[in-house]
């Protein structure tokens, strides 16, 4: 085990995959010589050569299409979209082409590729460097959607994503690259000393489709992904209520059994995400949970989310779900 932040852990996952499988190639904007604007691919071009790790022209639609073409012909590309906010020029390729090729070709062609993309707010990035567009992809059959939250699961999940034979959209909570975020912008811890900052240097994986129980509890189930896992952890502490915290990790296909079993135990559920509420992935989960747990629910399922507005710049702390808002929602589930 080595102490790593999320950037190092992701870099390590990529390094292991490049070593293990000669068909893995990495490309995207600024990922080659410079090693990425967040430094996730730092040193990889030097180690593996410029035909395996390279800078692409600045065109997300092109990056997606090239990745698909490579994957149709035997490679396993891992392309970076520099910010999730910039994935939309690639949306046609992802939604209409990459997601559907297995199905529409009768299984003859597949696109085993991964798009890594930093998402989420908390870096004063305004509406074009802060969005969490996961639901835009969970609504597209054929894609697997993953959202890591700490160095350990970042490496393990990225490994599984690259090895997965389906296309994966892999979201990285950029606010947590260098440390967990507990909702207080003035308190900025690093990953040093955090148990999930201990990461094996060698190969391992965290399976897709499995949620992680961060904290066991009996009074309420709190479900979150990405940065919100840590903010929820803080909220649970602040609330003083014995909550079970689930880090969903994979959004599609999500680990319904773990979630349902937890709610059957607690009878209460709060779902937290940064993305806007309307048609957010919390809505899908909420509907599914009530179908399975209706007779176990002691209170309405509650969502604490970003507002149904663009993500702001100056006032971002009034936008991102805060520990206070989440704690309030948890307390409310106990009143019913």
């Amino acid at each position: 085990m080595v102490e790593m932040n999320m950037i190092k852990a992701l870099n390590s996952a990529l390094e292991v995959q490049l070593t293990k499988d000669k068909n893995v190639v990495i490309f995207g904007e600024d990922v080659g010589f410079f090693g990425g604007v967040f430094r996730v691919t730092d040193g990889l071009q030097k180690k593996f050569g410029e035909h395996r790790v390279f800078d692409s022209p600045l065109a997300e639609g092109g990056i997606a299409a090239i990745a698909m073409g490579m994957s149709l012909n035997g490679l396993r590309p891992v392309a970076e979209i520099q910010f999730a906010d910039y994935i939309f020029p690639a949306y046609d390729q992802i939604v209409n082409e990459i997601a559907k090729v297995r199905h529409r070709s009768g299984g003859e062609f597949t696109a085993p590729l991964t798009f890594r993309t930093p998402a989420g707010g908390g870096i004063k990035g305004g509406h074009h460097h802060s969005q969490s567009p996961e639901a835009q992809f969970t609504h597209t059959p054929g894609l697997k959607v993953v959202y890591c939250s700490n160095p350990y699961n970042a490496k393990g999940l990225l490994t599984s994503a690259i090895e997965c034979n389906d296309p994966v959209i892999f979201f990285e909570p950029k606010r947590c690259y260098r440390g967990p975020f507990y909702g207080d912008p003035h308190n900025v811890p690093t990953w040093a000393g955090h148990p999930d900052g201990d990461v094996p240097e060698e190969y391992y994986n965290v399976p897709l489709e499995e949620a992680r129980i961060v904290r066991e509890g009996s009074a309420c189930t709190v479900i979150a992904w990405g940065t919100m896992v840590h903010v929820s952890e803080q909220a649970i502490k602040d609330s003083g209520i014995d909550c079970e915290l689930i880090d969903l990790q994979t959004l599609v296909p999500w680990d319904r059994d773990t979630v349902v079993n937890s709610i059957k135990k607690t009878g209460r559920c709060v779902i937290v995400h940064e993305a806007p509420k309307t048609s957010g992935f919390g809505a899908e989960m909420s509907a599914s949970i009530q179908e399975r747990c209706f007779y176990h629910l002691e209170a309405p399922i509650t969502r604490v989310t970003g507002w149904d507005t663009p993500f702001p710049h100056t006032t971002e702390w009034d936008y991102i779900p805060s520990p206070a808002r989440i704690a309030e929602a948890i307390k409310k589930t106990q009143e019913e």
Partner: protein
Amino acid sequence: MTERVTATTKPYTIGRPPFRPGEDADFGGKFTQQPGDLHRPDPATCTAQDTVAHASGLVRVLDDNGVASGEWNPMLDAETMIQGLEYMMRLRIFDDRMIKMQRTGKLSFYMRSFGEEAIAIAQTMALETQDWIFPSYRQPGAQFVRGRDMVSMICHCIGNTEDNVKGRQMPVHYTWKEGRFISISSPVGTQFSQAVGVAMASAYKGDDEVCISWLGDGTSAQGDYHYALNFASTFKPPVILNVVNNQWAISTHANLATGGRTFAERGLAYDIPSIRVDGNDFLALYSVTKWARLRAAAGLGATHIEVYTYRAGAHSSSDDSSAYRPKDEFKQWPGGDPILRLKEHLVKAELWDEERHAALAEKIDDEVMTSYKAACEFGDLASGPYPPASTIFTEVYETVPWHVQEQREELGK
């Protein structure tokens, strides 16, 4: 017998920048192209075919000694040139002050126009006040030409209570309708094809308006660039489309953005007159833009311009360019410094001197400091006040729908 071509051993070609850190940035001295090399075609009759040499060459007016010559010399009066110099100095001093503010935590982010000051300024000066400016993030200088108050610009960069976009955007993403300066957006290139739409609306309404837009060499890889050229070629609206080739898209050199020849030459394939211009030559930029406006206003359609320049600073306050290019590369750039080049021209013509230059710089510096202090009266980044949280919920739609209203009440601010 099957024909064969000797195969390369490389799997595919990877473009390279001319120099990497630790290497000598040697561009071979000066540009080979000189003022007078390229004639100025008649704007009333010019076709794309007439600009083949202009698309591969380089239109210059100022030579390496600051002397203006050739058919493209706009023959500007002293007042206009001194005004242009003042705007460029204003932009550089403003940028320098703002980046210092960012470094000391007084702004969250900043982007300078360093080395590219002539572009937005000369080009906007060549337009009419009713023309639309559709900028990228390195053309804020156009606002000085249109007379925007510096305090209001700084308030935006801080995101305080006087920010006209209410703290919603990152710094440098200016919006200024009064100056017909359309909102800068972070997704690069989107403005380019929108600019063609703006111009089509002007044409539809019969208004004497031209729209100008810019994007970078890197961004010219985006579909939006090609949509813009194709629609402009098809509908021939009054638009001026500039590719600012400043060599660098964050860490990615222009050589990795295209395997083709010049960016300007791409326009020829769309049958649009295309010109490559020395982007650090104020007079050449002014002249080419004036020429393009004449064509646009006459209903002759778009002009495609490659503005050949160098991004002297880092991409933004978030990166350190010495990690991917030689530190002194900008000093070796054959195009030199746009401010010093115009200054040299004015001094040689005995229209300007060192004393006046220094006095002007000092005056602007004072003005920037005074403006910064005045802006902070409306709130600074560290302690505010900021726009109220209620601004999150307004202007999402024309009126606030019930679900957004409920969320606003839930926030309780």
